[in-house]
């Protein structure tokens, strides 16, 4: 098996504010297997549940988010480990060392009143003993150097740094322990293209060298095109298509994926791009059957009633759409 196997995962936000109950079905039946040593991209529109999925994968499940069903199994080489059944301290042991997270908006982990190197020291000390201060500083400087960050940032306060620099520092923080799995949720969304390029290339290099797995969430298909080995497309809490990056980009089968790719602008092309018609689904009250059906131009009767299964159609190419499952001969 791969390093990570997710089986029919369901995670809902169940809130109860002054008596009004609301269930947001942010993850609704995701199964996926991620191989070792690959960059697995996850794309999908805003609020389709990508961040929620990453929260569950990193074991950061706390109310109102509730895992309703399914398993998240990791394999760090010593048998499979269900992260959802781990106790707090067991989780703490593998967090950052085996699984490292760069979450959306995570720049706020930098303590505004502490210099960067102190934040780094606090962070490292929370996980292991620091023998010599000098060695530690040198290590940090090396590490930052590899990320293309100047050593001066160690002496700076977070507010001295621009948004881009802060995010790079956060990424540096998350890769200190050389984790086996790096979960990166929109790590470059706030960065400019030049830094984004630098950071992505670096992530890729780290990945090549340490053979760790990167789960990269971004809604930017262009980023996936550049770095991901495989791409999964999420829509309204489910995976609708999963394949090698090339297949997704050039040979996509799901109408949603096709729309997504077609809507991308490019320099040198001013022709009108349409965004996907209709409005994004409300996960508190998702559409029946295929969740994309209200916005799909090839919708059929069955799409409104039944949930299309995610089936394999080609070389590790999976699609959840009745257009495809019909063609391939088996309805279910």
């Amino acid at each position, binding site marked *: 098996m791969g390093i990570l196997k997710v089986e029919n995962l369901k995670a809902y936000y169940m809130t109860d504010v002054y008596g009004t109950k609301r269930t947001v079905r942010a993850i609704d039946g995701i199964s996926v297997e991620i191989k070792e040593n690959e960059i697995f991209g996850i794309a999908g529109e*805003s609020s389709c549940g990508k961040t929620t999925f990453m929260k569950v994968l990193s074991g950061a499940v706390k109310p109102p988010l509730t895992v309703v069903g399914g398993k998240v199994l990791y394999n760090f080489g010593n048998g499979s480990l269900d992260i959802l059944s781990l106790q707090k301290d067991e989780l703490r042991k593998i967090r950052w060392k085996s699984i490292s997270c760069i979450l959306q908006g995570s720049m706020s982990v930098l303590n505004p009143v502490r210099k960067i190197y102190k934040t780094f020291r606090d962070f490292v000390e929370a996980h292991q003993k620091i023998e010599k201060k000098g060695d530690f500083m040198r290590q940090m400087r090396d590490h930052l150097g590899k990320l293309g960050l100047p050593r001066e940032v160690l002496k700076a306060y977070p507010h001295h740094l621009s948004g881009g620099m802060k995010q790079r520092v956060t990424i540096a923080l998350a890769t200190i322990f050389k984790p086996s799995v790096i979960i990166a949720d929109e790590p470059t969304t706030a960065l400019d*293209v030049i830094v*984004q390029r*630098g950071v992505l290339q670096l992530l890729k290099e780290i990945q090549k060298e340490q053979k760790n797995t990167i789960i990269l969430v971004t809604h930017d*298909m262009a980023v996936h095109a*550049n*770095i991901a080995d495989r791409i999964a497309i999420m829509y309204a809490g489910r995976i609708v298509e999963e394949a090698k990056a090339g297949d997704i980009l050039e040979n996509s089968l799901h109408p949603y994926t096709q729309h*997504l790719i077609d809507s991308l*602008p490019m320099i040198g092309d001013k022709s009108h791009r349409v965004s996907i018609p209709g409005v994004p689904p409300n996960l508190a009250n998702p559409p029946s059957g295929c969740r994309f059906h209200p916005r799909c131009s090839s919708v059929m009767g069955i799409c409104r009633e039944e949930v299309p299964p995610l089936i394999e159609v080609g070389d590790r190419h999976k699609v959840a759409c009745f257009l495809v499952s019909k063609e391939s001969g088996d309805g279910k």
Partner: protein
Amino acid sequence: MVNNEKLLSVKDITKVFSIGGLLTGTRLTAVNEVYFEMGSANPEIFTLAGESGSGKTTLARLILHDIELTHGSIFYRGTDVTTIRNRKERMRFMERVQPIFQNPFETFNPLKRVDTYLYATAVNYGIAKSGESTDGVVDDALRSVGLSLQEVRGRYPHELSGGQLQRVSVARALIPRPSLLIADEPVSMVDASLRMSIVNLFKELKEKSGVSIIYITHDLATAYYISDRIAIMLRGNFVEMGPVEKVLSEPLHPYTKILKESVPKPVLGEKWKDKIELSTLEAKEFARVGCKFAGRCPSVMDICKKEDPKNFLLDERTVKCHLYAKQFKNSIL
């Protein structure tokens, strides 16, 4: 006044920040002698692009008069906005010029429901009077960004995703029906499919409602798609400014070239090959004499490290780079 026909004229504005303490502190010129104009006859989308820390946000805040200029002047429809003092003038200015902020997670008070800002805007600018009509105004604004009042009503910021929040923020800014929107990276947190809907919305606002937009982004693909003109910023300076087709299709400034090359393309086989030189600490580059790009520029010459290049007018645009000094003698200031 001559400025009357202009929607906005920004004249040689400079902002200097003092950072650090009294003795060890340094001065950082976050915006350096920036000059540009936007006409009012034809609404336009003017893009400010550049890497982070190049002074885009600072420039936007100067135009919004959120922070004081160090020197220079800004005219909005012929009125010097740097002299606005009383609330009435300020309200009138804000009604016409509305901002959209960079970080949707910080745009709304975490302890308040997001719809309160929409209602407040509708009521304070006199767009709607009573409860019923306010709902209508708010719902219309939300629908124009692909949301609805039903989805947003009563929800706190943390209950909405980044993309949803940013759309609420755009909706709020649209409520007073402004003639200039200053959007600071409005789509950087919004996914590709909705990004196009917001970007198309900007285009529509420009074409149908005559709203001009200053669009700040580092996403050159959408910049190319919607804008008429573009200015490339580097450490406080406009290094290249002109029609977007010219600047992005055939960039002249070495920095623009690198910027363009770094835009990832959503097609196979176009992966980056060579490694990129990242900037060192920003303050250092800001403090550089001569061209701020000299430390990273592949075509750097000796003069670049000594003298600040002038603006050269060529091929419908201005370029601030020594490479073009010999070719074109007619430098403008």
